[in-house]
């Protein structure tokens, strides 16, 4: 169903490194742009990658982002060894955030992370365990329209 895997790359995300935050999503954008992926699919992939990257940077010590391109979709798997999410339903509500005031002053943690990812993914799955970490699996179809 997902077609053959054409490209796979794994990036390390450094927690608490706000200075470098966003570099991985930029790199993914450049790759997708070079490959001539439809604009709308790039836009959605980049938003998801950025939100995921930010979540790891904000809450975890470290994590990884795996980017996979198949003939039909972009897969983004983001796994971290962070605190986990206690109430997943709550975390999917727009505006809900556990970010500190400091983070928000920096412009992060407006509680848009998961809702924004959900909005932009064709399929989004979250696995989380308090004290262990969180994994987000996102799928973005390579749609030619839009």
């Amino acid at each position: 169903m997902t077609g053959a895997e054409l490209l796979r790359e794994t990036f390390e995300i450094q927690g608490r490194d706000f200075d470098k935050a966003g570099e991985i999503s930029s790199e993914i954008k450049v790759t997708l742009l070079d490959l001539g992926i439809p604009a709308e699919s790039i836009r959605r992939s980049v938003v998801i990658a950025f939100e995921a990257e930010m979540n790891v940077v904000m809450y975890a010590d470290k994590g990884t982002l795996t980017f996979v391109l198949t003939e039909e979709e972009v897969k983004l798997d983001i796994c971290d060894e962070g605190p986990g999410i206690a109430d997943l339903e709550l975390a999917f509500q727009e505006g809900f955030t556990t970010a500190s005031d400091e983070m928000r002053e920096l412009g992060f943690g407006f509680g848009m992370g998961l809702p924004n990812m959900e909005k932009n993914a064709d399929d989004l799955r979250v696995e989380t365990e308090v004290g262990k970490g969180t994994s987000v699996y996102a799928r973005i179809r390579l749609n030619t329209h839009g």
Partner: protein
Amino acid sequence: MNELTHGFRIEAEKCHGCMACMRACPTRAIRVKKGRASVIPQLCIDCGSCLAACSTGAIAAATVGFAELDKFKYKVAVVTPALYTQFPLKHAPAQVNRALRELGFDAVWEYAVDIELIDLAIRKYVKNWSGPFPLISNSCPVVVRLVQVAYPTLVNQLIRVDAPRETAARELKRRYSKKLGLEPSEIAAVYIAPCQAKTISILQPAEGGGSSLDGSVGISEIYNDLLSILRRGPAEDDPAGNGNGSSEWFHWGAPEGEFPSLSQEHYLPLLGLSDIIKVFNDIEKGKIRNIDFLECHACQGACIGGNLTVENLYVARTRNLRLISGLSLPSQAMGDEIARRLSEEDFSLRAPILPRNVEGRDIDLRDRVARKKRADAMMKTLPGLNCGLCGAPSCRNHAEDVSLDRAETVECVFLSRDRIDVLRTIYKKTARGD
């Protein structure tokens, strides 16, 4: 894909191969091979950075010549507000208009009404927009082209409202054909332009539709003539002008003034390509929030600093502020005219703006990936020095050029040392002085 029209010519004989243009180009559209610069047309966004960087005069802006306009029976100048900032303030806008008529235009269109109308249309568009924010202004052709080439994900965020210069051209043709009994095709709407990018937007609109303007004349092209007319001419009334003296159009040439009536809180003026690129990168990630509208001008100082303007940017800016401070309130007649046209006209773009088809993106995805892998592998063999001696601005660009069969691996001086000798002979011939 149609042949792309660009606003620049590179005259090979004058080019010294110094690479200044290659390094200045924001979209990496220039290559310098065998000591001569050339442009990859699909990547060029007509920003003029190469023109500004070229010290030998090899890169020249192309505008539509004045003479070509003679085939029209009636010529109307549509004047960028930036023009009025180019002359000392004692030469009031009305006198500049008179000088334009003396130069050969039959009338001068003051498009305060058009600007006001587009302002209203944009506000309505922003209010009704349900897609992702921020919306991006499309009045600077360079910004539109930058989005098409480097930010295809944002094309839908370019606002699909006409530019005032276009609605002005349509309206003036209606008006004068009725008044003079001429066919619209016998009337020329000629834009007095601050940059060649606007000329290109007339010759080849980004959205693929047509332009209602018939051509453009760069400010620098007629500057000396206008100035000498102004110097000898007495102050006079402006009998043939169609304006009402409200001078409202001055907002439009100014930074932070394109849409003065939009909410200040949710609108952001952006000047200069490098700042625009930074902000666009952040928009793509979804990092810019709570901004409804971005007013973007590729030039520092907006159109007042366009590459076909003459006056020092800061002198012109001061004059612009003085002109704005002298604004009077819009007249009743102007208000009536706005209300009339608002109810009768459609201000949306005639065709959608699409991403530009950049070379090599049209083959099978599998092949594109294979090509990228080839470029990545080649990158590992290159020094990462970005010296430019291969003719591409960076090692990455060289690797990509090779993967696109646009260059040969051996052009890198690190990979084949005899390249240095080739270059030595080329540059010995072209170097002047020392």
